């Protein structure tokens, strides 16, 4: 009996690898790093013009060389003849990775309880394995701001690259404290507060903000003089704005609020970025004069007022850029960040022009985030975030052929594509039973 068991067991163990193999349905393609030569394409560098018949050499996550006479030198050669190469696109405002299914509260991590929570870190809540990440990056969006939302100071936003299995691997080197500037606008049709109540709420919120900034200032002064301070994580985080370690990313949209926000920051010696800025076109000159960079979008959006032109949101980015504002674009999306190129196309068509629109999703955000020497263009020495496409990636008919993030060659698959492969010709089909 024992012997039979032993023989059987040996037999089973011998079979194990085969049994396991039977469960595996093909090779899994992983992102891989190495030395790559993207050969013979039209390279849109963004900062150094358009180079035709040019190649890009990548190694160790960086762009090594760009030009027409680049030798492979042991690199894996990828023929890009007839194709275009652009820098990976940057979406400057998303909740990607912070929510999986928006209506299921258990999967939503971009909003904390409390009105003053600047110490909440979006970066720690980003799920590197969110299904939406591979769905996003095959569109050519390689880098996004993951941003918390909610109260007056909802938390700290972070810039992430869409490759990696830990937040630290994804972190792209920029954080900002988010603020929702007290708003005179309504939150939607359901917001039935009276005009007087909105004004009252506003004044109180601004008073709170002033007090908090004052506290942060004291905190910073004391701590920089080496004082021993009580544990006060909210104010400690706001103090980083005072010390200019982090910028304040102020969400502000209605025209009068934008004017108030400009006034509010005027005498503060801090780094400021405006986000949203939906009615920016109404006060574009004032924003330009204040020299505050703007993250605006979504572009494909309704006007904020019934009386506005139908294309108010389409034209906003272009009007801001024309006034001299440095503009970056955002989708403000979670699962459809992949539409960033199409938002940029609409901005381009409605007054911004293609060149400016490309900057608004590449070099402009890189510079706004203080990463102008690392991201946002195809130049030697920069991080190898780039995309290869059959044609202008803003066009829907363009197919993205290769995506590199942090020098990793990204597999161009995701659940949407796998479902296409499974169901285009279903088996069993209709007639089988």
């Amino acid at each position, binding site marked *: 009996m024992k012997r039979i068991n032993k023989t059987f067991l040996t037999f089973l163990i011998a079979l194990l690898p085969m049994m396991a193999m039977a469960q595996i349905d093909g090779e899994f393609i992983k992102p891989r790093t190495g030395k790559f030569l993207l050969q013979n394409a039209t390279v849109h560098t963004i900062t150094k013009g358009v180079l035709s018949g040019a190649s890009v050499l990548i190694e160790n996550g960086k762009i090594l060389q760009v030009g027409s006479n680049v030798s492979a030198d042991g690199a894996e050669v990828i023929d890009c003849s007839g194709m275009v190469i652009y820098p990976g696109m940057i979406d400057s405002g998303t909740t990607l990775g912070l929510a*999986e*299914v*928006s*209506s*299921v509260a258990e999967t939503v991590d971009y909003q904390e309880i409390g009105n003053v929570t600047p110490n909440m870190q979006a970066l720690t809540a980003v799920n590197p394995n969110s*299904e*939406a990440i591979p769905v996003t990056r095959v569109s050519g969006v390689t880098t996004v701001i993951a941003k918390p939302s909610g109260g007056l100071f909802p938390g700290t936003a972070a810039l992430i690259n869409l490759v990696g299995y830990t937040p630290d691997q994804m972190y792209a080197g920029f954080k900002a404290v988010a603020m929702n500037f007290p*708003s005179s*606008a*309504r*939150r*939607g*049709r*359901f*917001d039935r507060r009276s*005009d007087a109540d909105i004004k009252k709420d506003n004044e109180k919120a601004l008073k709170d903000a002033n007090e908090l900034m004052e506290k942060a200032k004291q905190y910073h002064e004391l701590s920089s003089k080496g004082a021993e301070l009580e544990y006060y994580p909210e104010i400690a985080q706001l103090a980083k704005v005072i010390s200019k370690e982090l910028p304040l990313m102020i969400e502000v*949209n*209605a025209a009068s609020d934008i004017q108030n926000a400009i006034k509010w920051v005027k005498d503060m010696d801090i780094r400021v970025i405006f986000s*949203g800025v*939906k*009615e920016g076109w109404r006060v574009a000159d004032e924003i330009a004069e204040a020299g505050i960079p703007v993250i605006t979008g979504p572009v*494909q*959006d*309704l006007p*904020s*007022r*019934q*009386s*506005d*032109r*139908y*294309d108010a949101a389409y034209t906003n980015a272009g009007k801001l850029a024309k006034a001299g504002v440095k503009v970056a674009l955002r989708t403000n999306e*979670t*699962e*459809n960040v*992949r*539409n960033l*190129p*199409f938002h940029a*196309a*609409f901005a*381009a*068509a*409605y007054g911004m022009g293609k060149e400016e629109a490309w900057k608004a999703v590449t070099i402009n955000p890189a510079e706004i985030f203080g990463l102008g020497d690392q991201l946002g263009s195809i130049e030697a020495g920069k991080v190898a975030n780039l995309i290869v496409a059959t044609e202008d990636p*803003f*066009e*829907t*008919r*363009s*197919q993205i052929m290769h995506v590199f993030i942090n020098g990793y060659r990204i597999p161009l698959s995701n*659940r*949407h*594509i796998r*479902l*296409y492969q499974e*169901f*285009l010709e*279903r088996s069993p*089909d*209709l007639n089988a039973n």
Partner: protein
Amino acid sequence: MKKINILLALCLSLCLSFSWAQTPKGSVLIKNGTVLTVTNGTYENTDVLIQDGVIKKIGKDLNAPSGVTTVDATGKYVMPGIIDAHSHVALDVVNEATAPIVAEVRMKDVVNPYEIGIYRALAGGVTISHAMHGSANVVGGQNATLKHRWGSSNPEDIIMQDAPRTIKFALGENPTRVHGRGNGIQPRSRMGVEAILRNGFNEALQYKKAWEDFNKAKSQKGSTAVAPEYNERLQTLVDILDGKIIIHCHSYRADEIYMLINVARDFGIDKLVFQHTNEGFKVAPEIAEYTMGASVFADWWAYKFEVYYSTAFNAAILHRNGAITSINSDSAELIRHLYHEAAKTQRYGNLSDDEALSMITINPARQLGIDDKVGSLEEGKHGDVAIFEGHPLSSYAIPQMTFVDGIKYFDINEDQDDQRQQVSPTETVEPILLTEHNHRCMQDTEHLFETASALFQMNQ
């Protein structure tokens, strides 16, 4: 004498009201554009002549009959007016969420011709929208097919009177949430949804039989038969069973889609279109074989659990499997760029230009039962036309002019800053809406749930 006067007056007023009810029709010659007929190919340097609201001729070097204005479309693209098979634009209310079946409700009664959304849709080349009841009920109200005749103050003028009747159904999370969890009654599950449908149709069959029995008995000599009590709700279900109404069913998961196909087959219903249909791709062969197809989003997913396992290739898979497929907006925002949404089928599935354009023109027309009148540029069809700068499937396309029945309702060069027809007399300061409530499928059910923001997330 007096009687005759009254009769005359009645006649006159009847005549007048008939003439008022007649929709305005125009004539125009659109010269020298690239004409995308959708159903019969593309013609360069070609003219389209619309006379009295109808496409009279498509050809080269046409002359304008006297009194007909000419529009120069050189270098521009001329396509059929875009049709949105799922919209809530121009509706004052969307949901009658009081019972799992509210078939008697009519969206025609709540059409608001003043809504600026109509003009904004025109500015996206959209001439027809299917103004639908919301998705709170298993059997919702009857929808209205609208023609975007902006500028009228009469709701009747923007209703497409010769479109067939359609009705909204809804499966899955929305009706189970509203009734099962909100009101504590069936359905709370997808089992309950099927039961509501089968019970409803069986009751309708009994109702139909009761009337048939009565009508038979009534004709007997000396009959004392008493008529059954009239019930508009059941009569509407009977009309569905009799093939007089097209079902447009909000649905997401493959299992619930398959369930409704089976219910429809059991009751002999073949006028059935699925709406949203995010998992339609999983049962594409069945949808193709047994229904009038699916009307889908280009790329929406993951906003609620029942759309988590979606693919942006849905439209392409459905189409390749032979299902009639359209792309809709269900949104006051998306409706403005359906041409762009249709273009996404080229990114996700490599559809040809005509295939992509058919998803916002002839295919939704077929699903609304109006493809004999609109949905392509063909002689004899309505003069519903959109003119674009740039190919409409390019991301850089800009709609230039939109015509309904030969009358121009949008012209980018005549667009004013404020296009509202009417400003509320009680409004002192115009509200600024930052997150405009785009998606109104679940509007008017707010009271059933904790917060409006929770509602916003379950809208679609």
